């Protein structure tokens, strides 16, 4: 009985020993996945982030007819707008608008009393417009045209209206062109130029404008002509500073 038990124990230890040896040798086997040799490591991109690309366009009509381009806009545009309190006669109180600059944050709206309003000479609106917040702001500022109850003691406000609001559709427009790009990929708030895996030297021409997408294109064509090389642009910038 004891002999059989000893044999079983010895067999068990032998099995464990052999298993450990096999496990040890498994480390010597060639790896099945080498991270830096996989094809996805070869993907080459130049990405743009923290802007809105949905409203933009993309295509292949760069200046020389090759490559790709896309457009977008950076909406983190901030204004400090001071308005005299007589110019906001339509408001019973003092609306303090506070916007977060991020897309998914809520904004806070605070209404001050008339007493508090009288203590102030100017109302300063700090505006960080994005898709939703500037629309909200414009709606508030157009209240005087509809406000009748109770009667407004002051004449209708003519100083502030949505037509004169610079923040309407205000954004930093962006256009990026790359003659060597083979595609455009969008991922969340990123938009990327894709390049061939064997690409080495690639160029991206970037232009901006606060006016319109058409103006961005004008700026791009004027400042970064297709025949103008990178070295020429760098030398131009250098000589401007030199002067």
């Amino acid at each position, binding site marked *: 009985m004891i002999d059989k038990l000893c044999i079983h124990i010895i067999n068990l230890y032998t099995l464990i020993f052999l298993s450990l040896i096999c496990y040890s040798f498994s480390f010597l086997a060639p790896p099945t996945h080498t991270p830096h040799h996989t094809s996805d490591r070869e993907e080459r991109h130049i990405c743009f982030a923290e802007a809105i690309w949905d409203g933009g366009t993309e295509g292949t009509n760069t200046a020389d007819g090759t490559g790709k381009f896309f457009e977008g806009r950076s909406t983190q545009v901030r204004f400090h707008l001071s308005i005299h309190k007589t110019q906001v006669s339509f408001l019973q109180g003092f609306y303090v608008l506070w916007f977060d600059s991020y897309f998914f944050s809520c904004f806070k709206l605070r209404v001050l009393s008339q007493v508090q309003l009288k203590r102030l000479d100017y109302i300063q609106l700090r505006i960080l417009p994005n898709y939703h917040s500037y629309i909200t702001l414009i709606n508030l500022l157009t209240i005087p045209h509809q406000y009748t109850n109770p009667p407004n003691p002051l004449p209708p406000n003519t100083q502030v209206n949505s037509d004169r609001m610079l923040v309407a559709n205000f954004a930093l427009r962006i256009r990026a062109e790359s003659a060597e790009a083979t595609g455009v990929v969008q991922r969340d708030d990123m938009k990327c130029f894709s*390049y061939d895996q064997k690409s080495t030297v690639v160029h991206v021409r970037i232009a901006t404008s606060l006016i319109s997408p058409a103006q961005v294109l004008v700026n791009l064509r004027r400042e970064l002509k297709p025949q103008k090389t990178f070295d020429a642009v760098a030398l131009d910038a250098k000589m401007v500073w030199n002067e």
Partner: protein
Amino acid sequence: MVQYIPSIMIVACLLVVWMCVSVHAIDHPEEMVNLLAGSFTDGDRFSTGNTLPLVGRPWGFNHWAPQTKEGNRHTGSWWFKGSDHQLTWLRCTHQPSPWIGDWGWFLFGPQIGPITRNPTHFWEPRGAVLKPYLLDATVAPYNIRMELAPTDHGAFLRVTFPANSASGGKTYLHDSFPRIH
């Protein structure tokens, strides 16, 4: 004594002429600018000026700078430090000071591999060329060179990817700063 006055005046005039001739005008003052000056603030411990290495043109529409912090909604305005060895993005900025904050910014930069929202390159800022007219940095681990020259309303970016990153193209930090300026 009076008879020596003309001689003294002649010597003085010659000395002035010699000084004018020997003191050369600086041909390229733009090369003497160190954009990293003032950018080594370390949190609450000390401040060296809170400046940014802004590349742009005089009265330019935008400024361009490297970003050393992750670019996301929590980054805030402290997105660059001159002693950081991590480079995440290049940034179009309008930030005059971290205390005022940025507006109208966007990020861009090269990547190798799957597209990521938080690219991480490694660099030595003092080994890069950071001049008012040029940003030229070579970053590890993939030995990507990025050069940026500003225009009035934009910028020209030239990126040099490694010739063959898959077969041993990976480099290390010390390979990416061949020059110390």
